[in-house]
């Protein structure tokens, strides 16, 4: 034993799953980008109530999450959930405001952008198995919330 180390090995069974999925990474990414684009387009004219982050054409965003900022976020979240859409928040409490961070000495207001976003961000499903109908239904559900 050269140095005292850790026990942190990728499990062989998990590697089998990883090896299976990595073959599909291009298809998964393409599907997520397509779903994200449809959501971007569907929500674009809600500007004012909904803010979609700027998209840089030089960057290929792989959309692990599809996040945007929404007015009246908590009611929108409840509305979507009541319509069967599993929307989520990633993440509602910024790290510097977690109880675990108390000893680091940060306070509310230290990071106004992150803190403002934490109260407004919402995440919609964007996974590769979504159908076009499901994406349209999500768009329609957000639109209905703001447009009544």
């Amino acid at each position, binding site marked *: 034993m*050269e*140095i005292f180390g*850790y*026990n942190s090995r990728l*499990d062989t069974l998990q590697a089998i799953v990883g090896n299976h999925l990595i073959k599909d990474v291009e298809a998964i990414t393409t599907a997520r980008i397509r779903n994200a684009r449809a959501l971007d387009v569907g929500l674009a004219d809600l500007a004012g109530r909904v803010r979609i982050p700027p998209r840089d054409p030089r960057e290929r965003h792989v959309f692990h999450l599809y996040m945007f900022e929404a007015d009246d976020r908590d009611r929108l979240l409840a509305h979507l959930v009541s319509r069967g859409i599993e929307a989520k928040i990633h993440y509602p*409490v910024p790290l510097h405001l977690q109880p675990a961070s108390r000893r680091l000495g940060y306070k509310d207001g230290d990071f106004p952008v992150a803190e403002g976003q934490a109260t407004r961000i919402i995440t919609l499903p964007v996974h590769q198995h979504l159908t076009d109908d499901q994406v349209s239904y999500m768009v329609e559900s957000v639109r209905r919330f703001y447009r009544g």
Partner: protein
Amino acid sequence: MRVRYVDLPRQFEDGAVLARIADEFQRCQFILGPQVAQFESRFAALCGTSFALGLNSGTDALFLALRALDVGPGDEVVTAPNSFVASAGAIVMAGAVPVFVDVNAEYLMDPAALEDAITPRTRAVIPVHLTGNPADMDAIAAVARPRGLHVIEDAAQAVGATVDGRVVGALGIAGAFSLYPLKNVGAAGDGGMLTTSARELADRVALLRHHGLRDRDACEVFGYNSRLDTLQAIVADAALDRLAAVTETRIRHAAFYDAALCDLAPDVVVPPRRPHVRQVFHTYVIQAEARPRLIAHLDARGVETKIHYPIPIHLQKAAEHLGYKRGAFPVCEAQSERILSLPIHEHLSSDEQAYVVERIREFYRG
């Protein structure tokens, strides 16, 4: 004849576990799924503790026990130098200093030596139930308790072992178990368990294993990622079904070796057995004269043996900075040159065992 040291595929040949794993892919509760909770409650029942927590490894069980007890930088933790390196590695991970003490004829921490190793910085003792044989917990507690030291059992090899009917994992403030595939209760990858009856300790370990998250959003302390995988919990749960039979078989194999080898003393030394202790024989370790030649003799005749472990931890390169020299622990060091682990797995047939014994006897008696 070929006698393998272990025969892992035999445990899975009926396909029952594979079916249960396949089922899980319908639910995909891969992280802390219901099977983890089920395995935890069965494991706690087995050990007679209030809690058992599924973790990433036995190493992490020791590490998180130390962290949860606030043992860390500036502290010393006493353990045995003849264990697997992780027993000391977990102490180093926690930021504390491992302090070793010599072992006895049963390869277990010598409680008399423990007393001499204690300093004002000592916070905890980690006796190792090496080979599946419980350390002398009463004598260790007699040293530790008056000094307020935590006793954490390294029970990585000892699931189901007992002292006067009391099960290991319940004999200290916490017990650390490994579900490494070769263990008597094994997973199909890494896994570990921490047992305790102290609610506060269990609560802290539950937080620390899962990023310190009290719920999905609230991070109470910065923690770690050290959860027992749901798929591994399924495999280990099935292994638990077999444990009673596995242990009985291993004890029977050990009794056979004991009886068949005892008259080879002093060429072959079988450790003394305590009648009030139930060893579970994760390994069956003899001390052998002319060990390298015996290994070659057995190997040439198809008998696989192992050495657990050839280099004591205090003489490992990683331990250089701790300042131990050869000669520091004469019993441990002498044993490390003579110990040999014979096949004792539950699939060993009586013919195979008789064959192993015959090959050893012919080596010494010609």
